[in-house]
């Protein structure tokens, strides 16, 4: 897929939330990526190291929470998980299904460091 654009977008989102929280540094970024969103984690990490340089996100660790693709059979209501490729419902053989997870693609949270408020 287009890992560079993905990584640029992640950086932009992380920076805007970090700045809004007056962060000095971003240490961790938690991403939620469904199995049907075909991105390659290693490529994102590779681009990340380059594009986050000289920002407060430099050196931050990316965490990928992969959500499996799950389907619900319209015919018999059985729920099943996709392994490598699309399959019919293992319970009744129907291919009429709805997708219940696997399309997630968002930044869930970031971990930041900020100067401790010394108080008044």
């Amino acid at each position, binding site marked *: *897929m*287009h890992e560079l*654009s*993905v990584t640029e*977008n*992640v950086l*932009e*989102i*992380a920076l805007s*939330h*970090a700045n809004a*929280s007056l*962060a*000095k*540094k971003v*240490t961790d970024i938690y*991403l939620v990526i469904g199995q*049907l*969103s*075909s991105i390659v984690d290693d490529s994102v990490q590779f681009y990340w190291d380059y594009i986050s340089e000289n920002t407060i996100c430099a050196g931050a660790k990316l965490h990928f929470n992969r959500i499996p693709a799950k*389907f619900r059979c*319209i015919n018999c209501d059985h729920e099943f998980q996709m392994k490598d*490729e*699309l399959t*019919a419902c293992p319970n009744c053989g129907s*291919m*009429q*299904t*709805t*997708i219940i997870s696997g*399309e997630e*693609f*968002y*930044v*869930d*949270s*970031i*971990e*930041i*460091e*900020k*100067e*401790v408020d010394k108080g008044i």
Partner: protein
Amino acid sequence: MSAIRVPVVEKIFSANDRMAELNRNLMNSHNIFSINLMASPGAGKTSFILETIKRLNHSLRIGVIEGDTAPVTIDADKVIAAGMPAVQINTGGDCHLDASMMSDGLSQLPLSELDLVIVENVGNLICPAAWDLGTHINVLIASVPEGDDKPYKYPNIYRGLKVLVVNKTDLTPYVKFDMDYFRRGVEMLNPGLVTFPLSCRTGDGFYEWIEWLKSQVRTHQSNS
């Protein structure tokens, strides 16, 4: 220093999605219906657009945005030769169009003189699926010689489609393409998807597509 977890919960393509919404609003304000046409390279996107223009026979005013990875104007030139305004967007090697490129394309079209904008996305079955351009519907052209297993291999692009076109049906006697197997895969990803099997070369099946398209544009314009 203290470590703090900050909740974000923001879609990775949220910036693109916001721009897409602006594009959609801009087209709505001009009473324009638009389609994002996706397919693999060689599925017949440009031929399909040209045949659609020809068969609409000036009943709709059409503008075309051609996305290409290389700075060539071959496709746009063909559309202009067919008598419709077209702009070529060079993605500079990127594998897909995004909402910002779409916005560029729209700015070069005479919007007040159009009913329909057709966007020909970059030939690719993976990347274009992730980027909302701000068009009203996504259309995919699958073609018979590509094989019947594409829904199984590229599931993402079949999600979010409003219409599926199966092109080059005239080649069915010569290549192995099990339409039932193909349709079962599609059904799993997008139940009840409107599908038009047709051939740009023979014109078979085109009538149904053209009538459907006209009715979509009419409905959109009467609701605007």
